[in-house]
């Protein structure tokens, strides 16, 4: 049994690390252990995501918490021979603290982990998600047992209400209240739905939880089912998450075998089972009515609320929809109590929030912090600051529904309401950091491009309005816009927010409005000076020859793909702006710094 082993080698089996050959690392580690006859001394365990994706693939050694980063399959031999066999840490694979320039062996001392509190991610990176015993060993299914044997549905709902947990999928609706409404709806059948259609580009918390700790979600769904009077659970999951699907299937089978799903759970007479439903690539299906229509086999178009799903949902029956992270918080709340959970976080936002930290930041990865942590702490302490020593410019939260926050918002505590007040929103937890090289008009355009692509097309403001916003932003990035365009951008944004049918359209102009509010100068630069300060907008760039530096080597002219550079050998060259396609080849080829962008 596992207890007799001296050492565990935890290999990250998340999608990110798998893409960097973590499976081969695992195979090699196992082979090396065998070669050295250490199979009974140490065991290789595939775990869910450790969160520190920037430095993946990650191998962590227990019990000493040694954290090896950017491990290659070829490193397996050294890890086994040095660390397992001789007890010597492999220095070159340790994480190096960029500030102190020294190796940190113990993950608990790494800046990335120091400020984190892991509730939803409590088991990610600790257990083998494909083994229910490991989940149970860490108090798994204890909460379900407590709910079924000690608590009435009303008492369970009361605990969730008291905990102050709010929906982690974006809206922030109080979870306990949602459960209560569904529990009070009278019907012969009710449903518990887990929204795992994570569609926010740049967010992967739900996937990591499902890959790293699938039982947490199953347990929570069963608890919810008992509270609201439902015997059926459905997980609506993105088809693009094959690993999460595989692990969920394994988890469901194991839970059934252990009598933790199915009929007469824990001999209490309570029946509950879970099925999977697959999304097919539509962001709007994150909206609960759209999700329900999709599960019913139709186009994922949202419908007007009311009726709310809690009254009339899947197949017309009362349905409670929560997202993955919300569910992952439930078992610890039951186990440790509402007061414990409510003691973490702030007055109006309790507990923690998982963020997918990405973009121009040193420590890309998955983090979980208490509500109320400031953006500065997240970006500069946990995230390790901006990549390549560049200057921080903005942080985008809330994905396509959110906004870009700036320097002046860095000390804002992260809460549902403060983020909305600042012109962004919590969203599902994507957090993209941008530096001085990012053009904020282009960023707004990027999000609008996404919204135009993902709008379901049902209501006119979202279907046509977002397209027009995108087109206007395009004229700004091409230097063809006027001040009137900017006025229209703002006016149209407000109307789209005010009139759209669902949350997608009601929030889609946020990236435009927040960048206009916070980076007005940059918009002005595009419109009035016809310049892109970040140097991103191609149409506004001009490549010119600096006559004093040009020696007439002809390298630029020879490499220009459109032959728009003229000049005799040893003479100053000239770039024909009307023909230039701004590919940048001349700048790249010039050895004399004789070409610049103006």
């Amino acid at each position, binding site marked *: 049994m596992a207890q007799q082993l001296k050492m565990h080698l935890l290999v990250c089996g998340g999608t990110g690390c798998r893409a960097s050959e973590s499976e081969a690392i695992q195979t090699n580690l196992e082979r090396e252990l065998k070669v050295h006859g250490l199979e009974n001394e140490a065991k290789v365990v595939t775990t869910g995501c450790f969160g520190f994706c920037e430095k993946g693939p990650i191998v962590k050694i227990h019990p000493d918490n040694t954290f090896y980063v950017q491990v290659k399959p070829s490193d397996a031999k050294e890890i086994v021979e040095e660390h397992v066999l001789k007890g010597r840490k492999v220095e070159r694979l340790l994480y190096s603290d960029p500030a102190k320039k020294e190796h940190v062996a113990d993950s608990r001392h790494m800046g990335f982990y120091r400020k984190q509190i892991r509730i939803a991610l409590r088991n990610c990176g600790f257990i083998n998600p494909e083994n229910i015993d490991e989940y149970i060993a860490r108090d798994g299914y204890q909460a379900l047992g407590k709910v079924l044997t000690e608590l009435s549905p009303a008492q369970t709902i009361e605990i969730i209400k008291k905990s102050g947990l709010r929906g982690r999928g974006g809206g922030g609706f109080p979870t306990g209240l949602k459960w209560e409404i569904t529990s009070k709806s009278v019907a012969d059948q009710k449903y518990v739905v887990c929204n795992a259609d994570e569609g926010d580009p740049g967010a992967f918390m739900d996937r990591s939880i499902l890959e790293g700790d699938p039982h947490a979600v199953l347990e929570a769904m069963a608890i919810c089912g008992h509270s609201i009077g439902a015997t059926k659970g459905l997980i609506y999951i993105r088809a693009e998450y094959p690993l999460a699907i595989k692990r969920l299937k394994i988890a469901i089978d194991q839970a059934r075998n252990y009598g933790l799903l199915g009929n007469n759970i824990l001999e209490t007479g309570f029946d509950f089972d879970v099925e999977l439903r697959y999304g097919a690539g539509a962001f709007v299906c994150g909206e609960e009515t759209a999700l329900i229509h999709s599960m019913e086999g139709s186009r994922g178009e949202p*419908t007007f609320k009311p009726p709310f799903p809690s009254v009339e949902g899947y197949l017309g029956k009362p349905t409670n929809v929560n997202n993955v992270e919300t569910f992952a918080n439930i078992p610890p709340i039951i186990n440790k109590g509402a007061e414990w959970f409510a003691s973490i976080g702030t007055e109006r936002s309790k507990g923690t929030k998982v963020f997918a930290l990405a973009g121009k930041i040193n420590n890309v990865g998955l983090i979980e912090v208490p509500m109320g942590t400031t953006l500065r702490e997240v970006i500069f302490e946990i995230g390790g600051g901006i990549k390549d020593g560049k200057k921080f410019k903005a942080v985008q939260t809330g994905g396509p529904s959110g906004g870009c926050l700036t320097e002046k918002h860095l000390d804002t505590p992260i809460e549902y309401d403060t983020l909305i007040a600042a012109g962004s929103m919590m969203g599902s937890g994507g957090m993209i950091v941008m530096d001085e090289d990012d053009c904020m008009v282009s960023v707004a355009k990027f999000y609008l491009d996404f919204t135009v692509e993902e709008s379901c097309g049902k209501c006119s403001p979202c279907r046509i309005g977002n397209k027009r916003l995108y087109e206007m932003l395009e004229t700004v990035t091409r230097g063809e816009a006027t001040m009137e365009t900017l006025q229209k951008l703002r006016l149209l944004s407000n109307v789209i927010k005010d009139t759209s049918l669902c949350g997608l359209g009601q929030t889609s102009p946020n990236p435009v409005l927040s960048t206009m509010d916070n980076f007005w100068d940059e918009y002005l630069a595009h419109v009035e000076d016809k310049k892109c300060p970040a140097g991103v907008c191609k149409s506004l760039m001009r490549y010119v020859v600096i006559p004093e530096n040009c020696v007439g080597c002809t390298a630029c002219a020879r490499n220009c793909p459109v032959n728009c550079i003229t000049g005799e050998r040893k003479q100053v060259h000239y770039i024909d702006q009307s023909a230039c396609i701004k590919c940048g080849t001349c700048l790249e080829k010039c050895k004399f710094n004789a070409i610049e962008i103006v």
Partner: protein
Amino acid sequence: MDMIKLIIDKKPVEVEKGTTILQAADKIGIKIPTLCYLNLGGFNIENKPGGCRVCVVEVEGRRNLAPACATDCTEGMVVNTHSIRVLNARKTVVQLILSDHPFDCLVCAKSGNCELQDLAHKLGIREIPFQGEQSTYRKDTSPSIIRDVDKCIMCRRCEVMCNEVQTVGVLSAINRGFQAVVAPAFEMNLDHSVCTYCGQCVNVCPTGALTEVDHTNQLINDLADPEKVVIVQTAPAVRAALGEEFGMKPGTLVTGKMASALRELGFDYIFDTDFAADLTIMEEGTELLDRLTTYLNGDKTVKLPILTSCCPAWVKFFEHQFPEMKEIPSTARSPQQMFGAIAKTYFAQKINVDRKKLVVVSIMPCVAKKYECSRDEFKVDGNPDVDYSVSTRELASLIKRANIDFMALPDSGFDSPMGESSGAAVIFGTTGGVIEAAVRTAYELHTGKPLPKLDFEELRGLEGMRSATIDFDGLPINIGIAHGLGNARKLLNEIKEGKSHFHAIEIMACPGGCIGGGGQPYIHGDTSILQARQKAIYNEDAGKTLRKSHENPDIIRLYEEFLGKPLSHKSHELLHTHYFDRKKEVFID
């Protein structure tokens, strides 16, 4: 009933629980503009996807604007339907819709009847500040319906009609976002689909995205051609609706003015489809009695119930959807086609004109009739019995084009020998009418006794499915009626499952029957107009002395001079048809 008090535009109003803001406002005379919303009251047809966002209003305490069509009133609600915020938003939304809409209003078939055009006018829109890409799709022309999807505004009304009401299932929302539009599968042509051409989609389309094929120009050319003899027949439902196009009250009968207008337009003979309706009753009624007698004599192989076959959309529906049952409907052709067949034989001989020089035109409340004319089995050596059909709307347009002051026209009658008709023929124009007409004749032919009472109230009404048992002097005859193809499907499924107890069933594709046909003046959601048309038709019947088809002297003469007797060899040749299995006929472009 729970009542709710609320305030709309500073006016208090009390409504039942479950009332929408739109309905509550309407109650106190506030007409909130709508676009996608459609409520065909009395038919249980409602479309409120809440998609266009034109009807948005401000509700105090609410973060964003609320669509009035889909938002229920709540106690103490304070609603403002014309605040600056609302007016700006509404205008912007319509401007957005217009920014993705062709600007060919001047030559659009829907001009003057376009709800989007009206809205733009009403909201005082004088410019479209948002320019950008316009979505473009292939234009599709079928024998009856033209789809110009560039003009689709995604109101989804046609989708509701085609799927929920008619259960035909040709149209669906496709693609998403800016590309989203309503179209057939694979954007195939309608004439490759299972479309029945009932035209209900055309009837509800607020813009010019769905319109009927225009035959007016061809008609003008034929009328001007001295070589051609142009004959017109007019269907019963036309006279009950045509007046609306000239501002007359719905339900005004304009039979006499219509005949005068057709004469003014230059038709050589003004005949009546009602004449052929009487002929249909002779053939169909006899067929019913024939099948019934055979059945009662012990031959259980005979197909019962007999189904009416006057409606071309219904015929195409069962050919696609229930081809295994194609032996059940009556083999009688529709009145339009019976008329054509008689006109190009009997009448052509009478006036001694070659059928190729004869142009038979029908004025129909229908667009499926255009398709019916084009069916190969209704042609002789490629020459169609009915050359083409124009809708009630097209006729109105022609009359206006010809500078005819319709209101000032005197009444006149139809020409002979194909102009006389009974009241039984007139009621063909409404649901329940064909079967009532058939009962009047079948009863008397079967019992040999005169009917004690001609009005069968039990067969009348606008309920989607109705049934009644008529006592044929001791023999109870079970009659079923369905209008709307969704209702027809239910009855057909019953027959398929052997659960049907009917002897005869009347089926009309359009809700209301021909009075609600796809070629009638647009009612823009006002179903009281259909009721008025129906009433007019029953009034015309009641006012006639001749009220039974078999007593029509022109019909009697036709049998004497030409056909012999109902179901004779000649009748079979000219007045009956057969049906096709079209299950496999659908194909992808």
